[in-house]
């Protein structure tokens, strides 16, 4: 079978299947989390990215170990793609001793330097200056690694967003800024928090390109990201990619999301990135039914094992509440 040529960046069939695997794994991870919250096994603070998986996969697929990611709260999938074991990530959500932060916080609030993963605080936008600092070191060392820095459209209204992107622009840092524009910041719709059509235009304030793309099309996201990454690696500086998307669940699992209509949700659910991509693969004869089942089974096992690992992991030692404060 020929490799798919839809993008300039050739992908083999195996790679395409891998992309499907990631999409589905991340979907399954979040879906399981959603259940676990309801069961009271995972405590608050769960912000699923259901519906937005194409952005995570399209931007992370093919990254080097040395490349750095600076995710937002909906991007737990980026941790997985960058090499964190699903069980460890699940343990992080369970606040177990085996989680990345040893139970000190959950979700994205921890990182792994060796894997190029930066875990932020809760303060929206505050990961972006850190991304700039990492990018600066790549440029200092004249290595061609890149940083992928994520933020929501809502976070693009913070001061830190502005200061970081301006610095990245003037220093021409190797950073791809990914705006996940899911039309809402918690309850506040896009048009109530800024008077523009596309967050992408904001790149013009910083002297680099901004493009709005379909965030639910994993290949479109992949192609755009790879283009931006290539420019970044060759010293052409940052790019802002605005990925238009939608989150299916509420802001957090506790939010009933009454602020939006059922029609709107239905419309966006019909743009689910996974069936679209699956159908595409089937039409291209890349994906046989048996293969699909195999993937689904593998994912099921992976998630089950992750939950088992997390459940069986020890609670943190109480005295760990006061360690690791100083080096």
């Amino acid at each position: 079978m020929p490799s798919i040529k839809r993008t300039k960046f050739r992908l083999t069939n195996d790679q395409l299947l891998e992309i499907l695997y990631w999409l589905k794994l991340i979907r399954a991870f979040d879906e399981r989390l959603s259940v676990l919250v309801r069961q009271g096994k995972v405590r608050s603070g769960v912000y699923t990215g259901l519906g937005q998986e194409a952005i995570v996969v399209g931007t992370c697929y093919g990254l080097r170990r040395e490349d750095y990611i600076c995710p937002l709260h909906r991007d737990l999938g980026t941790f997985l793609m960058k090499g964190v074991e699903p069980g460890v990530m699940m343990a992080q959500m369970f606040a177990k001793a085996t989680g990345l932060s040893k139970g000190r916080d959950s979700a994205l609030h921890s990182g792994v330097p060796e894997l190029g993963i930066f875990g932020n605080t809760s303060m929206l936008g505050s990961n972006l200056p850190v991304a700039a600092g990492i990018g600066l070191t790549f440029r200092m060392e004249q290595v061609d690694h890149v940083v992928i820095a994520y933020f929501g459209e809502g976070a693009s209204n913070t001061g830190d967003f502005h200061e970081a992107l301006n610095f990245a622009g003037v220093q021409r840092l190797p950073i791809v800024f990914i705006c996940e524009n899911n039309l809402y910041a918690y309850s506040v719709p896009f048009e109530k928090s800024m008077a523009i059509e596309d967050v992408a235009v904001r790149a013009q304030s910083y002297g680099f390109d901004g493009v709005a793309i379909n965030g639910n099309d994993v290949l479109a996201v992949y192609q755009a990201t790879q283009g931006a990454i290539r420019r970044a690696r060759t010293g052409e500086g940052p790019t802002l990619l605005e990925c238009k998307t939608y989150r299916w669940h509420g802001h957090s699992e506790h939010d009933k999301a009454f602020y939006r209509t059922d029609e709107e949700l239905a419309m966006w659910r019909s743009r689910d990135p996974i069936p679209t991509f699956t159908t595409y693969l089937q039409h291209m004869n890349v994906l046989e039914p048996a293969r699909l089942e195999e993937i689904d089974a593998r994912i099921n096992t992976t998630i089950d094992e992750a939950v088992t690992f997390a459940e069986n992991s020890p609670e943190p030692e109480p005295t760990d509440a006061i360690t690791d404060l100083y080096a």
Partner: protein
Amino acid sequence: MTKEITYLEAIREALQEEMRRDPKVFVLGEDVGPYGGAFGVTQGFVEEFGERRCLDTPISESAIIGISVGASLRGYRPVAEMQFGDFISCAFDQIVNQAATLRYRYGGRASVPIVVRAPCGGRVSGGLYHSQNTEAWFIHRPGLKVVAPSTPYDAKGLLKAAIRDDNPVIYMEHKYLYRRARGPVPQDDEEIVEIGVAATRREGDDITLLTYAAMVQPALEAADELAKEGVEVDVIDLRSLLPFDKAAIFRSVEKTGRVLIAHEDVKTLGIGAELSAVIVEERFDWLDAPVVRLTYPDTHCPFAPALENFNLPDAGKIAAALRRLAAY
């Protein structure tokens, strides 16, 4: 006339009554509009007051405070909500430099009647960035006032007082108490709780226990414990942290000669440090024992309950500290 409501409802009532009374009062913040606020404090406000007086802002904490200062210069009394008190650090400059200094640099020709609501505190599995107690930073800054109610009664009365106050007031509302604290609240529009006045929650001659917010309840439980052992504790709920009620504190110290301070904030330069220092400076000769602090240890607030409970002061830890102090 009073009514039994929760701490959160008391905050809502205070806001509603003040907004009805004074058209210059308005609220702004993230998701405070149609959504009614992350914790539901402003539910129903858009319906009653319209979006202009209950304004959803972009995610821009620094601007939220700057906007409040600007509006206050034109005679308004904005109540700004930080979605979580932790995010107040993003607005720090506008609070400590813009709001706190304006009257002084204006030679007294203007004032800044704003209120910043900061949902704070732990025991809600919030982790490092949804559990902070940030009062000390603001108590350290001249030009601000800081309050921290522990009961629905005070939540209402202090918020009303804060809104009517002509100075910037940081209003620390404890998330743990939102739905757990229930109690009588006056239904008289004009009843406020004066800023700067403490409340004695329990009388005792043996030890003075200074505390506030979510520590008041465990402090009272510990005091009951000690009473069984023959030690009577004077439990003072500070309510106002800047200014704090020196007179009430000194009256109690003069009676007991022994002081324990309990707070949820970390120890180093938490308000306990100031209380201790002031008592020692001005009532040294009345002291029969060292002023002692029981606080959060000097670390961050972890997510896992096993860890958080290790850090949080509670009735048991307070009782133990009281016992040690009684035995001194």
